């Protein structure tokens, strides 16, 4: 277990270094940073001085090393456009994205797993078939369309829910939260549903097919033959055995919830990292793009580590085997 984790840690470092390299090459190849920083009327001499001051004349490896070290300590330099530290900007925006992703994940799991179990147990039922057909919509409709439809229905026609922004937020230290105010919670509903819908259907279909598989196994049949009631057979024995693949997919999906909240954030003008990233692309604000890239990679690496550890918790066969 320890050696396994150590190996995983080494792999993670390799992954992060690779992503750092890609992020760093953006500075080199996507436009000239000096041009992006200074105005039209800056003289060539001033430009050269700035170039020297920023270390842009140093050899490639030195620059990369400097970038990686800075990145490791959370320093990504200054935004070209806003001239404030990127880390500050990201940290300011992070709570919005994380809260949105968190609520979406909860929605996806809270509805996805029970619906998956239900449709597996009542495979031939009318309601199950309805749910399965509807889930196709969830998988196939693009996120922005769902978002716009929800805005149209609940925001414009019914006027129940706000259509953009985070509502009122409360500051707790450096963290801003929308969980503590009514308007904050109301604002969360539409974007989180939009973001969750795809994951929900995915988890539901996954749980369903895994459940169907497990329900056919001998140990489920043997559990029934011992007279165990359905409740125990389904939830104590069958559902737990579906968890390993579900954890894998859920972990990866949680990563993409954070990473691909971009579209949802754009539709709902949600002041999160995704929206910031989209704006940074428009402005060719490379430090922000690089930092975002690194951060998302970091999230994925961390989530994958947690998933691997969860395997050990769920499946005793992976733990070091003793006995005969």
């Amino acid at each position, binding site marked *: 277990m320890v050696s396994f984790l150590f190996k995983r840690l080494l792999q993670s470092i390799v992954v992060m270094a690779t992503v750092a390299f890609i992020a760093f090459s953006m500075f080199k190849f996507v436009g000239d940073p000096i041009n992006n920083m200074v105005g039209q009327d800056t003289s060539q001499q001033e430009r050269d001085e700035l170039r020297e001051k920023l270390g842009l004349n140093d050899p490639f490896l030195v620059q990369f090393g400097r970038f990686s070290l800075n990145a490791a300590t959370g320093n990504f330099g200054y935004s070209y456009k806003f001239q404030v530290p990127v880390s500050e900007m990201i940290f300011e925006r992070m709570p919005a994205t994380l809260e949105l992703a968190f609520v979406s994940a909860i929605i996806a799991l809270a509805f996805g797993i029970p619906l998956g179990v239900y449709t597996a147990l009542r495979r031939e039922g009318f309601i199950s078939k309805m749910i399965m057909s509807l889930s196709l919509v969830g998988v196939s409709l693009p996120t922005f369309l769902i978002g716009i439809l929800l805005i149209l229905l609940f925001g414009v026609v019914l006027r129940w829910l706000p259509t953009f922004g985070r509502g009122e937020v409360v500051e707790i230290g450096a963290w801003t939260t929308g969980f503590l105010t009514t308007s904050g919670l109301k604002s969360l509903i539409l974007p989180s549903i939009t973001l969750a819908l795809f994951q929900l259907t995915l988890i539901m279909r996954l749980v369903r097919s895994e459940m169907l598989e497990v329900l056919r196994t*001998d140990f489920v049949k043997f559990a029934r033959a011992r*007279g165990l009631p359905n409740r125990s057979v389904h939830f*104590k024995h069958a559902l737990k055995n579906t968890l390993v693949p579900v954890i894998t997919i859920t972990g990866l999906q949680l990563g993409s919830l954070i990473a691909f909240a971009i579209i949802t954030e754009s539709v709902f003008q949600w002041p999160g990292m995704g929206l910031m990233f989209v704006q940074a692309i428009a402005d060719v604000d490379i430090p922000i793009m690089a930092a975002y890239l690194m951060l998302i990679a970091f999230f994925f690496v961390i989530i994958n580590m947690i998933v691997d550890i969860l395997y050990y918790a769920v499946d005793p066969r992976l733990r070091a*085997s003793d006995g005969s």
Partner: protein
Amino acid sequence: MDLLNINGLEIEFPSRHGTVKAVKGVSLTVQPGEVLGVVGESGAGKSTIGNAVIGLLEAPGRVSGGEIFLNGEQINNLSDEGIRKIRGRRIGMIFQDPLTSLDPLQTIEQQLVETIELHLKLGAAKSFERAVDLLRQVGIPDPENRIKHYPHQFSGGMRQRVVIALALCAEPEVIIADEPTTALDVSIQAQILELMRRLCKDKQVGMLIITHDMGVIAEITDRVAVMYRGDLVEEGTTAKILGDPDHPYTKSLISAVPRPDVRLHRFPMVDYIEKEEDRKKTMDISTHWLGQARDFDAVEGPLVSVENLVMKFVAKEALLKRNRKFFTAVDGISFDIKQGEVFGLVGESGSGKSTVARMICGLYTPASGAVNFGDTDLTKIKSEKEMDYYRRQMQMIFQDPFSSLNGRMKVMDIVAEPIRFHKLASSNAEVESIVLDLLEHVGLGRQAALRFPHEFSGGQRQRISIARALATRPRFLICDEPTSALDVSIQAQILNLLKDLQEELGLTMLFISHDLPVIRQMCDRVGVMRAGKLEEVSETEALFTNPTATYTQELLALMPRLDTLSHEGLEVEGA
């Protein structure tokens, strides 16, 4: 009053293509302390009866007629809830595969205590005590500690003991055991059967044992019911059925069981089942395609010889190479296989016999040692091209006919693949005619070529595997348990086919099996393996009549005794 009384039971499976009657009017009774065997081949409906008794028929199957009584109380018309209360409480069930019968994510304790609590409501402490006591009764050493373990920490035999303990949780009146020892080694099988028999007598439980194995029947049952395609063809005391069967099906079924005592030239066929329709074409090797281009390098002495073969698997991964723990599966094995000889390897599961086969044909790379094919050491060959030359000369037939054929390829392509790969035919038309011919020779017929593997039964698929193996015109065939997944009658056909082909083509064969009677019928010489080592190599007849190694003697002693089986009047038909 009978403990279990099945009266005129009819079970049908409605399907789109009409209704299949799986069980047709079967009546059986079981008394307390009695073991009733239900024997038959796959598709006989024997498992269906067991499932019907505990109300777990798989959809869309249903009981369409007859009654089932437990101690005089009718149980086949109970509600779902009513029959659930009987399952486990009054009727215990034991399934075939102990490796998959237990929930892998729960400890033995959790599974035992849950079942005991459910039926007996003893309270946590008493339930735990009872669970430990049950484990002790089924012969699990150190039950106080072992109860904390997960299923994967037990061996197959130990797991089956746990399964039996689970079936005994609530002191049921009847136990239904569906192929309880089929997945186990002979030595473990003997122990488990002994345990079941003892429990049955001590607790005066009625037991219904469902099996295809005449050895199990001979060992444990008091009475036997023989089933064939849903019909009960014969019923009587074990001695009567095995020693003096009346029904022709029973006779032919018994005759197909490979005999441990005498070597016959051919296996007697169960002619009651298979009419002579699939008699294969015989071939004249001098003119046939399979006989051509057999211009392999002439070999002096043994065709295949292995020297000090060692195989290690990583048992425990570690970051540093020197910290890795290895499991030695094959530990310094040497033997020769002469040209035209059938060499047998016999041993229990885990003895390393399949690993040896895989090393010989290059699927595994040995840790050390040499595999000589003729004069060439195959382990020294580096180039793929050179290796292909030898790969063509040796082919392998695997145990499981269901997973060893690509389900997305038609039989034509499956058999043609090696011919095309080794460029053994000049045109596509020639490839196809060769394939069709091969299919006829293995007794499948030409029309098989256009179908997919899933359309065939286990025995037919094994014939496809054989055709595929022959397609490279090999001179050395490795058969790894080629019939252990098949019914006895099918086994007899496949083994006869292999024997015929071996004689016609002068093939050299390595034949691997755990089944001693089969080895006796098939092999010229035998090596006995145990825990990665060869215990003994000798001529087959000498091994069976006069074994030298103690382990071989033990194995022979554990062979199910079929002395009671009647062979009179059958040898003539079979020989």
